[in-house]
C-alpha cells in the first residue's frame, strides 16, 4: 500500500519558550532521525501538528531548513488544540506531518532588496524566511523589517528583534506598538504598521515585499504598497483558512480553483487578485 498521507509521526518537544502574551515557541524533533534529516522544509511551508485524541492543526514552521536539527513552531493559544499544546513541556510527545503547502519564492528573491512587514504572530512565518536569508546573507540585498504588535509585551522573538538581527550587516529594523502600559518602559514608536510602512517609504526598484499579520493589517499594507508603486508580483503575502487534510482534498480551504493548504499559504498579489472573493470581504 502506498504511503498514508494523513498519518503523522511521533516527535519530541525539546524546548518551550514563552514568546509573548499567549504565544509560546516549541522546538520539536522528529523521533525518526532519517525523517528529521530529510524533512528539508522550504521557508514559509507548514506542518500539521497533532495531539492524539484532541486533533490536528496546520502551523507555520518558523525555523529555516538551514537549521535542520529541529523545527520550531510559534503558537498562540486560541482554540481546543492550541490550548492543549500550550500545556506541553520539554520531553513531551507531539505528532507531526509535513512539510506542507507552498513556500516563499526565495530563489526569485535572490539579489533583491527585501522588505518584511509583519504584525503580531504574523512574524512567525516570515521568521523562517528572514533567518534563511540571513543564513545565506550574500545572496540577498538590503533587508528592512517593519514589525508591530499590540504592546511591547506582545512583540515576538525579542532576542532576535533587539540583539541578533540588528547586528547583521545591511539590516534596518522598524518596530512599533499600538499602545503601551505604564510598566512597559517603551521609548520606541507608537502607531500602526501600515503608517510606519508609509513613513519608511521603500523604493519599489529592485525590491520584493513579504507581508503577514492580522487581516486588517494586511489589507492596509497591500493598499499602501500599491500606492507606493509596487507591482503585484513584488507583493507577497499569505492566506489562511480553516484546514483539515493539508493536502488539497478535504475541501474546506477551497477558494476558486485553489486549495490554500496545498497551493498556499504563500501567494503573490497577482494570484490573489485572480481569486473570486466578495468585494466586501
Amino acid at each position, binding site marked *: *500500500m*502506498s*504511503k*498514508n*498521507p*494523513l*498519518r*503523522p*509521526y*511521533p516527535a519530541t518537544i525539546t524546548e518551550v519558550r514563552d514568546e509573548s502574551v499567549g504565544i509560546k515557541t516549541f522546538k520539536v524533533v522528529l523521533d525518526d532521525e532519517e525523517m528529521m534529516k530529510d524533512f528539508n522544509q522550504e521557508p514559509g511551508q507548514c506542518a500539521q501538528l*497533532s495531539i*492524539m*485524541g*484532541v*486533533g*490536528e492543526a496546520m502551523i507555520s514552521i518558523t525555523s529555516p531548513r538551514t537549521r535542520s536539527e529541529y523545527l520550531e513552531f510559534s503558537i498562540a493559544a*486560541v*482554540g481546543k488544540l*492550541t490550548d492543549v499544546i500550550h500545556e*506541553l513541556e520539554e*520531553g*513531551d*510527545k*507531539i*505528532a507531526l506531518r509535513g512539510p506542507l503547502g507552498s513556500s516563499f519564492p526565495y530563489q526569485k528573491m535572490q539579489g533583491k532588496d527585501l522588505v518584511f512587514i509583519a504584525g503580531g504572530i504574523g512574524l512567525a512565518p516570515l521568521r523562517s524566511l528572514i533567518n534563511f536569508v540571513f543564513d545565506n546573507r550574500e545572496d540577498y540585498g538590503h533587508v528592512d523589517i517593519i514589525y508591530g504588535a499590540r504592546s511591547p509585551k506582545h512583540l515576538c522573538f525579542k532576542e532576535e528583534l533587539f540583539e541578533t538581527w540588528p547586528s547583521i550587516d545591511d539590516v534596518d529594523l522598524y518596530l512599533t506598538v499600538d499602545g503601551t502600559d505604564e510598566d512597559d518602559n517603551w521609548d520606541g514608536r507608537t502607531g500602526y504598521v501600515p503608517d510606519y510602512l508609509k513613513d519608511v517609504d521603500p523604493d519599489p526598484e529592485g525590491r520584493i515585499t513579504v507581508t503577514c499579520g492580522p*487581516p486588517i493589517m494586511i489589507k492596509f499594507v497591500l493598499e499602501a504598497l500599491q500606492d507606493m508603486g509596487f507591482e503585484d508580483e513584488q507583493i507577497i503575502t499569505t492566506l*489562511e*483558512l*480553516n484546514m*483539515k*487534510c493539508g*493536502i*488539497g*482534498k*478535504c*475541501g*474546506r*480551504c*477551497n*477558494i*476558486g*480553483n485553489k486549495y490554500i493548504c*496545498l497551493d498556499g499559504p504563500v501567494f503573490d498579489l497577482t494570484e490573489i487578485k485572480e481569486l*473570486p472573493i*466578495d*468585494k466586501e*470581504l
Partner: protein
Amino acid sequence: MSTKAIDKNKLSELLNSLLFKQTLIAPVEAEEDILLFKNVESADQVVLDYQNTITPVKDWFFSQTEELFEFKNKITELEINDLPATDGEYILFGARPCDLKSVELLDLVFDEDGEFSDSFYKEKRDRTTIIGLSCSEPGAYCFCNSLDGLSPTATCNADIMLTEMDGDYLVEVLTDKGEKLVSDNSSYFSDKYSEEDKETRTEEIVSNMKLTVDVDDIEAIMQKEDVYLSDYWQELSLKCLGCAVCTYICPTCHCYDIRDYSRGNAGIRYRCWDSCMFNDFTEAAGDHNPRPTRRERVRQRFMHKLRFFDERYGDTGCVGCGRCLEKCPVNLDITRVISDVKELA
C-alpha cells in the same frame, strides 16, 4: 476491447461464481425502496431493474467513515500505527454511467500521481474490477446525456459494461481487468453482438431521456464577476435549508472531516464525509468565517461543480445523475440553476 453477450439467466450464475473468489459489491435493497451498494452474499440479493442507488458508488471507494490509523499515547510516549491494509479483490457490479464518470472525477482528486495520493482510495480502486450497467430507462431526474462524454450507456472507466438487450446483455470488455474476468469465465459469454448493436440500442435509450439542460459555456459564464457577485445567489439561498443531503448523495462531492476517537490512552483517527453546506465547515478559530451565510455556501456548491472543479481538473464536476434534484427537500434544482445563470450573463 471486444463485444460479447451474456444471457440474463446466466448473469446471476456468473455473479455467484465470482463470489467464491472475490467480494462482490452491488445494488441491494437495504430497506424497502432504499437501494444501496453493499457487500453481497448471494446473487439473488442483487437488484437489476433499478434506476439508481440512493448513495453513489463513491461510498465504496471513499467510505462514509474511514479509519486512518491507530495510536497509543501517554504524555511522554506516543505510538502511531497504520491499520492493516485492505487485502482481497473486489468486484463492483451495477454502476450506472453517471457513477462511473464520477469515479473518473474522484480519481483526479484522490488518485493523482503526486506525493499526496490517497492511499485508502487508491488501494480500493486498484483492487476493484468495475462492471458497469447501462440504464435502460433513464429516470425523470436524469440529465447525463446533456454532459460531455456521458450518456445512459457511456462506458467511462468501467472494466466491463453491460447493456440490457432483449433477453440478454450486450457485454463490452474494455480493459485488461475486464479481459481477465471474461477469459477466466469464458463459458458464460457468447459472441453475438457488434459495436453497431450498441449504437442502435443507445439511440433507442437516449430517445427516452426526459430531462435535458444546455450546459454550453457554463464554466465561462460562471467565471464572470457579475455572476459571482449577483443577487441571484442570495435569492436562491433563501429556500435552502442547509440540510446537506445534496452533498452526501452527490457522486463527486469529496469533502471530509478528520476526527479522533479515543478512550484512555488509545484510539483511532478517522475521517468522515463533510459538507460545504454546513456553517461550521469553514469556521476558523476566532470566529472568522469566509462563508458566513447560506448565500456563500449555496454559491460555493454550484461554483465548485460547474466552474472551480473544471478550472482545476479540466472536467465538469456534475455527472447529471439527478440525485440532488430528486432528494432536495425544497427542489433546489441544478438544471434550473444552470439555465438561470445563463440568463444572468
